[in-house]
């Protein structure tokens, strides 16, 4: 009755750019976390040799 059937596929298609954009921004944050973690681990593992 006036309500359209919700389709996940059409929703994803319609909002692909928005969703992909959100994921790429979260990816940027995840990359920062990963690089920072690697730097911290490296520092901690190098210290005993200095």
């Amino acid at each position: 009755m006036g309500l359209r059937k919700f389709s996940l596929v059409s929703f994803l298609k319609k909002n692909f750019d928005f969703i992909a954009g959100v994921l790429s921004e979260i990816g940027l944050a995840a990359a920062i976390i990963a690089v920072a973690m690697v730097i911290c681990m490296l520092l901690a593992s190098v210290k005993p040799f200095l």
Partner: protein
Amino acid sequence: MIPAVTREDLKVIGYNLSKICYVTGAVLFLPIIVAVIYSEFDTIPYFLIGSAIAFILGCLVSHFLYTKKEMELKHAVCMAALAWLLAPILASVPILLSNATASGLDACFESVSGFTGTGLTLTLDIDHLSHSINFLRHFLQFFGDGIGIIVVSLSILGKTEMSSVLAFKGEAKDMGIRPSIVRTSRMIIKIAVAFLIIGTILFTAAGITAGLDPGTAVFDGLNHSMTGYATGGFSTRSQNLLYYHSVWVEVVAIVVMVLGAINFNLHYVVLGGRRREILKNIEVRVLLFMLLTFGLLVSANLLFTNFYTSGEALFRKGVFHVISAQTTTGFQTVPPSQFMLMWPVFSMMLLSAAMVIGGSANSTSGGIKMLRVGVLLKSFWGDVKRVLLPRTAVVRGSFHHIEDTPLTDTVIKGAAVITISYLILFSVGTAITAAHGYGLEDSMFETSSALGNVGLSCGITSPSMPAVLKVTYMFLMWAGKLEIMAVFVLFGFVILGLRKGIKK
């Protein structure tokens, strides 16, 4: 010659301020839903009184100062500066009535800290605060700083498109990304709501893994998502994020903080399909450079002073606070007193520098802004090249921010003026704090936190701190939010009115 202040000028400013009163009144209604959900019926009158005061004031102002005159840039700038004072004062009423703070001044401080997205708090017992008042504190940050109260007020209630465009400029959010201001506002709200939902889901999941019951995890998740995206830093816990002792909560907080620190224009183009823009943008590059450099230096300093020895601790205490400072959020995973009493001075100085630099322009972040820092660094590098290259060589500078922009003298001057103004205010704030007996590095830390709208505290900000410092920090938060220039325009307007009188 600068024209004298006229009655019509005051009417235009006042009439537009009445819309801020209406929207603040509406904002104060929302926590009533939370009060009903948690059966905190005794708090409902506080919100009703606050809301009624805002609506009555709005009605009176719009009745007596009604005008058909269009807003000009000077009106918009003065209106924005006054709006960031008026809205916090109105919103402090429920906080004051609920006795969440020790005095009216503290309630105002809390409200200014909320609206400006700072996060320094004077609330007495956050852990036992009612849900509705706690929600209000967080919602003030999300609505005031995350979405932008002036933008929403004038987009919805503004007479013309032009008044809203000028208001954007007035509160230092010169967007220029959409053909229509209504569409711009819709886009800002859409982005904010999308990240709010994502943040809430992630924080809730992290909270449950940290041992919270689902109800508490959702409440804390929603509030932290609001303040994380708004780069505000208020927390539902007196110990801030340290309360959870959870690496997942901290990881989610970093993701939300980084998202909040990204320029709205960049959000818009990236979410519109130009995803590669994220790596080309000058602000993102400066952000990455600053985070990794400061993160490395702070971690190395903490490690070699034997303060933290494991990689995990360096990340969770060192890098986390660098990101919290740089994005101007203020989430904290160490007690404030630990900063003051135990952290190495070098790390404190680096965190202060990160707070002064801040996040992206046109984002929810404060500080000088990375775009300006990027412009100044590019200009500096251009000057170095000019010296090194032959005299006949032509050095043309440009930077990439959504599109390639030439590095003109006007752009460099604009960045330099704001930077110098920030540094002057920073020096004055540090001097006033140090004059109250605090150490220099602690004074610099707390001042940069207030001026950069950050919220990290080394313990100076507390209900027992001198009233002069409370007022100083309120001024710094206000001036920092408006990127200083609007404050001087307002002062100039007032001085002009006092010297030349108000003409008809």
